[in-house]
Each structure stands twice: as C-alpha cells, then as structure tokens.
C-alpha cells in the first residue's frame, strides 16, 4: 500500500494508458504498433510532448496499416473500440502536463482505489473484451472529467452525435459491397465539416519545438 502511495498519479495514468493500448492492441491482433508503446511511455514520463506527438503519429498510422475494416456497417465494434479508445487515452496521457500536486503521490484513498480498479479491469478485459472496452472508456471519461470543461464535453457530444447521425442516415447509400472508399470519403467529409464548425474561432496555439535533451534539432 505504501509502495503504491509513492507512485505519482500521472505516471500511473500514463502507465495505465500504455497497458490499455497494449492489451487493446493484442485483442485486435496488432504487432508493429505495440513496439512503439515503450518509447512513448518514456517520452510521456519525460514530458517531451513534441517528440511524443511525432511518435504517436507513427503509431496511429501503423494501426491503420495493420488493422483493416472494410465495411463500417459490418465491423466488430468491440475489436475496433478496444483499439480506438486506448489510442485516445494514450494521446491524452502523453499530452497531459504534470503538476506539482501530481508528482507528490496519491493524496486521496479513492484515487488509489480507482487506479487499482481500472488496472484490474484491464487485466480481466484481456479475457473478456467487453469488460476491457468498458474499463478503458471509464478511465478516459474519468481523466477527462478532471478538466471540468463543460463546453468541451458539449462540443464533443454534438460532434459525435452529428457524425453518428450522418452515418445512420447515409447507411442506405454507404452500406454497399466494396464501399470502403466511399465510406472513408463520407466520414472524412462529415468530420471535416463538423470540425470547421468549432475551428472557426482563433486560438493561440503552442509552438511545436522538436528537441532532444542537449538542444533543439528543429
């Protein structure tokens, strides 16, 4: 127990994200992307967000290369979600900043219980995929709930609802034999239009500075 208390919550979160991505990847039968998880974990711990982003891009493209879904309406939802949600969890864990409080260790008992519970659920999920998906989804919601970003949640809900609605409405046109390319174009187009709705507002964005420990290389 004392040993667990000495763990830093954000490290645990990053560790959980990597474990989730690994288990999810194994459930989906991925190989190559899993090799990138360890360096991503190290970069996450070192708080090197820029290099992490690059590596994450490679990881995401590798997933797309290895896992194939030819028809959206005939997909194995558990298998797809066991890859998608841990990937988002991994991205969030890698980008999240570490505050002073978070480096001190767990301050509340319930945090420790949740962290332990989620990890156990991940392991059980190895055998029961649905449990895994539920646990990962729960972990993602729990992490995002800390932001208290009501507008963000609202925007995300609207976006995903619109996308789902578009897919449901377009099922008649899209659900065809060999219609993967059409579905891809359709989802990309709808996602882009939805994104444009929220991207019109100008925001100051952080600079991307790729560097290694001794200095900048880009």
């Amino acid at each position, binding site marked *: 127990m004392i040993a667990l208390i000495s763990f830093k919550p954000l490290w645990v979160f990053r560790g959980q994200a990597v474990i989730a991505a690994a288990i999810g990847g194994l459930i989906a039968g991925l190989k190559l992307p899993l090799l990138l998880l360890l360096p991503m974990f190290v970069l996450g711990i070192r708080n090197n*967000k*820029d290099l992490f*982003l*690059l590596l*994450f*891009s490679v990881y*995401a*493209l590798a*997933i*797309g*290369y290895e896992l*194939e*879904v*030819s*028809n*959206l309406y005939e*997909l194995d939802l558990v298998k*797809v979600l066991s890859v*998608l949600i841990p*990937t*988002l969890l991994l*991205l*969030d864990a890698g*980008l*999240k*900043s570490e*505050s*002073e409080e978070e480096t001190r260790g767990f301050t509340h008992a319930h945090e420790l219980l949740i962290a332990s519970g989620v990890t156990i659920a991940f392991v059980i999920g190895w055998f029961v995929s649905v449990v895994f998906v539920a646990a990962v989804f729960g972990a993602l919601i729990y992490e995002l709930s*800390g*932001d*208290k*970003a*009501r*507008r*963000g*949640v*609202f*925007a*995300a809900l609207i*976006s*995903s609802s619109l*996308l789902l609605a578009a897919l449901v409405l377009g099922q008649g046109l899209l659900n065809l034999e060999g219609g*993967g*390319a059409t579905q*891809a*174009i359709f*989802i*990309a187009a709808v*996602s*882009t239009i*939805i*994104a444009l709705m*929220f*991207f019109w*507002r100008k*925001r*100051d*964005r*952080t600079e*991307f500075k790729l560097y290694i420990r001794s200095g900048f290389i880009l």
Partner: protein
Amino acid sequence: MKREDILLTLVLLLFVQGYLFRNVLPILLASAILIYLIYLRAGFSPRIESEREISRKLKDGERVKTKLRVKNLSNNRLKIEVLENLPAGFKAERPSLFLDAHEVKEVEYFITPMRGIFRLKEPMIRAKDLRGLYYEDFMRGSESAIEIEVYPNLDRIREETEAGEPLRFKEAYQSLFGLQTPELDSLREFQPGDERRHIDWKATTRLGELIVRDFLKEREGDAYIVLDAGKEMRKGIKNSKIDFATTLTLQLAYALRNYRAGLIVYDDYGVKRVEAARTRGIEQVEKMAAQLKIGSIPANLMGIKSPMPVGIKIKEESRKFIKKILPAIKGRRSYATGLIEAISSLPSTAFLIFISDITANTSELIKILLELRKRYKILLLTPNPILFYDEARLDREKLIWLYERYKEREEVIKKLNGIVRTLDLGPSDLLETIRSRGVLE
C-alpha cells in the same frame, strides 16, 4: 509549426490512408482524434485576474522579491506562466504554476532591476491548457503600471571601488608629477601622503624627525594649469565650483613648484589672466595665487544647468541666432570662445592641466581636446556639479533631476576619458592634502 498542426496533419494522413487502402479504421481513428481536438478547443476558455505587489523603491542590481496574486476565473484547470514585460536591462524569473477552477494562488519570484525611474507594467499571464496545445495571454492595461525608483546600490559601488574600477585621483596625482627616477634630488621633512618606503632612516635618526628622499622626475618642461572661470563654474552661494577650482589650482601650483608652471584663467568671453611659466619655486606659486581673484556669482542656482521653465521653448533657429549675436552684445571680440583664446596663448609644448566644467560647451571642449592631444600631454579635472549641490535644497524632484544629469554626465566623462585622462572631483578632493601642507594658511 504548431503542436495542433501535427495532430491535424495526422488526421489528414489517416484520411488519405483510409481512402487509399479502402480501410475505414484509420478514418474512424482520425475522426476520434478530431473530436478530441474539438473537445480541447471548445473546452479551453480561460479567464485570469492578477495583481502584483512590489516595493516602489529598489536598489540597482539587487534581487527583489515580487508577489503575484493570480486568480483563475474559469472552470478549467490551467497551467499559468508569468511573463514579465520589464524595461530593458531588468532580469526576471519565469515562474509557472497550476490553478484549479476558481482557485487563487500567490506566487513569489525575483526581479533584478537596474537604476533609474521606470513605469513597471503588470506581467503578462499566459494561461495554457493542460495538454499544452493552446494558450491565451492576459495583460492588464497601462493604467495598472506603477512607478518604481531604482537607486544606485551603495554596496555594489563600494565593491566596484574596491575592485579598482574607477580611476582614482591618487593614481592620477602621482602620474601627474611624473615617474620618479632612482636619482636622488633632495631630502625633506616627511609630509602626510609621502610613501613610507622613501623615508631616509639614517637622516631620520640623525636629525630626530622623519626625513624623506625626493627623487628627480622623468618629465621636464612647462606645465600649464588652464582654469575655467566661466559662468557655469561661478554659480552658487556656497560650495561653488570656482572656490574648489581655485583651491585645487593653488595646490597644483604648489605641487608643481619644482617645475616651470604657468596659469591661464579664462571665462565665457575670453582669457582673463595669464601667468607665463617663467620661473619655478614658491615665488611662482605666489604669483599664480595673485591671479586667482575670482568671485562667485551670487545666484540662486547651483553650478549646473537648470531645467528650462515649463512653457518656455526656444526654436532651434532662434537658439542658433542668439548664440551668434550674444558674444557681440556682451563685448567679446569674436565668435571664438574663451577656451579657444586660452589655448592660443599656450606654448608649443607643455603639460596641460585643464580645470573646467564639462556641462557647458561640451562639444567645443571635446573638439579642442581632440586637437590638443596631438601636441600636448593633457589632464582634465572637472568638478562634479552634483557633488557641489546644496543638500538643504534637495527634494524629490531635484533629486530625480540631479540623478538624470548624473547619468548624462557619466556618459560625457566616459567619452572624455577616451580622449584625455579625465577626473571627476568632489568638494573634498585634495582639500585635506592642501590644508596639511599649510598652503591655505
């Protein structure tokens, strides 16, 4: 490139990958990342309030603690960075902290100021989202700026002085009278300021009092003291610069009694008196002393230029015109100033000691010194008007004004030092030496 652009590029690549490979999964992943970005973008709406506490009176180069109270008015947890917008030359730490929704925190950090009076703006607060993708800067308006006064740091000045950075008068005094040769000139009584290693112990035991050896000097030739008795030097009721300058001249004359020393006194309108360097000894010193009958101007102003009264402005053309006609009105023979006339009275070779105010006719003085240094060895002694200011008349405004003049003067001194050796003197410089040698009596 921005961090967000990396993710958007990834989204685009996944779209392309999905289309080319007829694979829906990369498209779904791209959409998920896009929704994640929408969540972060829409959720980031920071509002920050800050207030800084800092002492109004600081010391040059001394780290001062500043306290900043930051309040997060938004519902988001934020990472805060404090970016100081300080005047040039200031240094500041760059603290960062995390703020929960509606949380108030105080952060302490250090600023290292440099001397002067400045209007210090509130720092810029950069609120970042926890993922480090977006930020927003908050800065209060210029009305929140406060005026701070940064005074010279006495400890620092003392350290610099101890380190031997400024030119010391004693060094110049020694160099003025030339390097000593090992050849013995004469023996005389010990006087305060003499070096102990020059005491002749045999003569001391024989005569029962301290006797020192005088050595022959390397430099020979005429030495001329060129004394400025112009308006700027004569201003003041007490502590006038001319009083000090005449005392200094006498002391120099006495110190140069073994040389052929001369004196030229000039003012704004021409050369007043010349005592050519014909003989040496006390007799010559007395002759020079007789020439030093210069009174001070009983004015309310001290020996520095006063600021122009508010509301009176003279155009540049008018200024030039007045400058041209003024000598004629005041009976001067030509446009040439007293200084130009004074140097025309000099012999072809001599060691020159200028005692002059450098705040009036600075550019003319610089031009002349640049020309003279080709033929003469020159030392410029200049009474610092700030050090002659009457303490009883000081108030805050005058102090600020004096400080500004002091800084300007430092620049001029630096410039002059690049041309000839220049010494800035105060009222107490050399006075003790003169008194101890009985010259004033």
